[in-house]
């Protein structure tokens, strides 16, 4: 039973981690929390739904090969969501750079409400059911049952994290992002275009969030326009748990939160499943604001 909960927790945790990375990356370069990030994830889920529903209309070579088709779905959803991230930054954050902290926070909240209602109006307030595509037949192995879908989700989330790690640590743009998050002023002095870096950061975060959205849609089978609110809060908790601004921290925090939630729901009470995240959030912020892997900084939270 324990292993079963653990596996379910890791599946969910992978997507929490992907969303949490978006929070952490943006916090790194701008030192603010992108409150509308959860909505990007929700939009990703809806784009996944729209694209997968289009399967019968796809060219035959895509219909024939499921992995290729899923890759295309993930790719297109992620691209469009990156643009959402780009515009979000451009409209809600860029004009407010340098303003008091309350101002971008409220505009982000506004963006979050706007996007949520935009999707609600166009896609309807009812749950949307994902078409069944990938195998849901459970495989049992040593008392633990899992579906091929679960394995796909776990592996693709790990692959995406590896991709991000490579991007941050091995590419020129990644180096620029790291430089900007260390010291934006110095980064500008050595010739880094800070505006571009910030845009790219938002786009990278949205890319990952969109993938997480498609995964969650496939995993739960149904999506709703309010998905982004709770998902966003939980991923934020994961980012704080690992230490906000810290990339490996967000990954660890995401998996940890998923596992805690699955174990909590399994052994205590599933009615209070959503409360665990909030309690962890408050506890971490109060007792160790720097998170598990974060450095203690002078400016407290």
């Amino acid at each position, binding site marked *: 039973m324990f292993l079963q909960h653990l596996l379910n927790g890791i599946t969910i945790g992978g997507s929490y981690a992907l969303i949490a990375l978006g929070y952490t990356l943006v916090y790194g370069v701008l030192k*603010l*929390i992108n409150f509308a990030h959860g909505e990007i994830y929700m939009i990703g889920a*809806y*784009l996944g739904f*729209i694209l997968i529903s289009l399967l019968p209309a796809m060219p035959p070579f895509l219909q024939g090969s499921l992995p290729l088709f899923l890759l295309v779905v993930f790719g297109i959803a992620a691209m*469009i969501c990156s*643009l*959402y991230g780009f*515009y979000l930054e*451009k*409209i*809600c954050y860029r*004009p*407010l*750079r*340098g*303003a*008091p*902290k*309350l*101002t*971008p*926070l*409220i*505009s982000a*909240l*506004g*963006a*979050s*409400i*706007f*996007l*949520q*209602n*935009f*999707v609600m*109006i*166009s*896609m309807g307030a009812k749950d949307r059911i994902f078409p069944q595509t990938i195998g849901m037949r459970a495989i049992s192995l040593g008392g633990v049952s899992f579906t091929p879908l679960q394995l796909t989700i776990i592996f693709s989330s790990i692959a995406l994290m590896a991709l991000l790690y490579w991007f941050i640590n091995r590419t020129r743009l990644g180096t620029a992002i790291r430089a900007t998050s260390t010291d*934006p002023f110095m980064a500008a002095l050595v010739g880094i275009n800070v505006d571009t870096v910030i845009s790219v950061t938002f786009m990278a975060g949205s890319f990952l969030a969109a993938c997480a959205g498609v995964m969650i849609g496939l995993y739960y089978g149904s999506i709703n326009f309010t998905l982004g*609110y709770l998902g966003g*809060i939980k991923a*934020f908790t994961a980012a*704080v748990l690992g230490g906000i601004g810290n990339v490996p921290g967000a990954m660890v925090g995401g998996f940890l939160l998923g596992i805690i939630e699955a174990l909590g729901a399994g052994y205590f009470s599933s*009615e*209070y499943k*959503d*409360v665990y995240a*909030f*309690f962890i*959030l*408050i506890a971490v*912020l*109060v007792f160790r*604001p720097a998170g598990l892997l974060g450095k203690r900084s002078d400016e*407290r*939270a």
Partner: protein
Amino acid sequence: MNARNLRHDLFFYLGILLICVPFLKIHTLYVLPVFLGAWGLRRFADFAGENRLMVTLRERTVNSVLAHRRVTVGLILAVALLIPLGASDYLIEVFTSVILYAILATALNITVGLTGVLVLGFIGFYAVGAYTTGILTAKFALCGFWIALPLSGLAAMLCGILLGIPALRLRGDYLAVVTLGFGEIIRIFLTNLNGLTGGPNGILGIKRPSFGLFTLDHPRDFYWFALAVLSLVILIVARLVDSRYGRAWIAIRENEMAAGALGINVFRKHLLSFSLSAFFGGIAGSLFAVKQGFISPDSFTFYESVLILCMVVLGGIGNVAGSVTGALLLIAAPEFLREFSLYRMLVFGAVMIAFMVFRPSGLLGSRVIAQEIKDRADDGP
């Protein structure tokens, strides 16, 4: 306006429209006029900001209102008192809602506007107040409304203190998220603690208060009662703003470190403003419970928190009159625009962004904040 500007705008809006395509259905093509409107407003804002005539006109109006403050307040109060005499019962109910939200917005303004602390779970205090009254007067019928009313305020205040002691050590965004978590935790507990709160079904049969033989049954009487409470709350807050406490709060908002260096106990002043605002939130909740006669967790969602925040932002952060104006606009206006109720929250979101970007000080903004934002923008990041 030059051609380059126009081209830039065109690309900008086209790009947004393009990414919206997957979600566009025929009726969502309403988005188009929204874009056109946004573009027009932006141009108008540019024009109004620079045109001398517009600027002087605006300043004249503001100055004359400020010069005759007592007269203005008296006039508004007189109109508010007379409304129920000419209005239908339905309209009176709407205005009673406006008053309840005005109390909430005024209360939230103490933390958001005066001390500069963003609270996103304010509805939690409202819920605690409403449920305290519901449980005391209806569920277990322990006491009457007049005892439950202050107890509701105190219960919310206690929650405020218990939350504030750990949470107020955090700053800005983190504090906002912790308060959001608080609001959610309250709601989830209300839904699941069946024995105490009636679970998802809530509490029924909360009676209207009475003065001896005289019951506030008629909407009109209850309206006047709520108006009296609102006036009292506004009076207290307005006096506080001018007191030592208010000055300390504003000093903290403007620069926490400098305020601390001047000998202000920042944490205690924060806690005071937080618990006071929770207290008024609880009082409003109690009024809500007796107004509706029925409460359930559905009335206390995150959206309500956002709605109240919207009022504060729209009216002008840190401005008491602004909070009331915000409540009036956001509660009364949708009642008259029922056909557009689907688009209400969509518009709220857009308005919140627009105000932050173009007019962070709100409709009746306090000058201090506006100046501060301008100065910081001039200094650069």
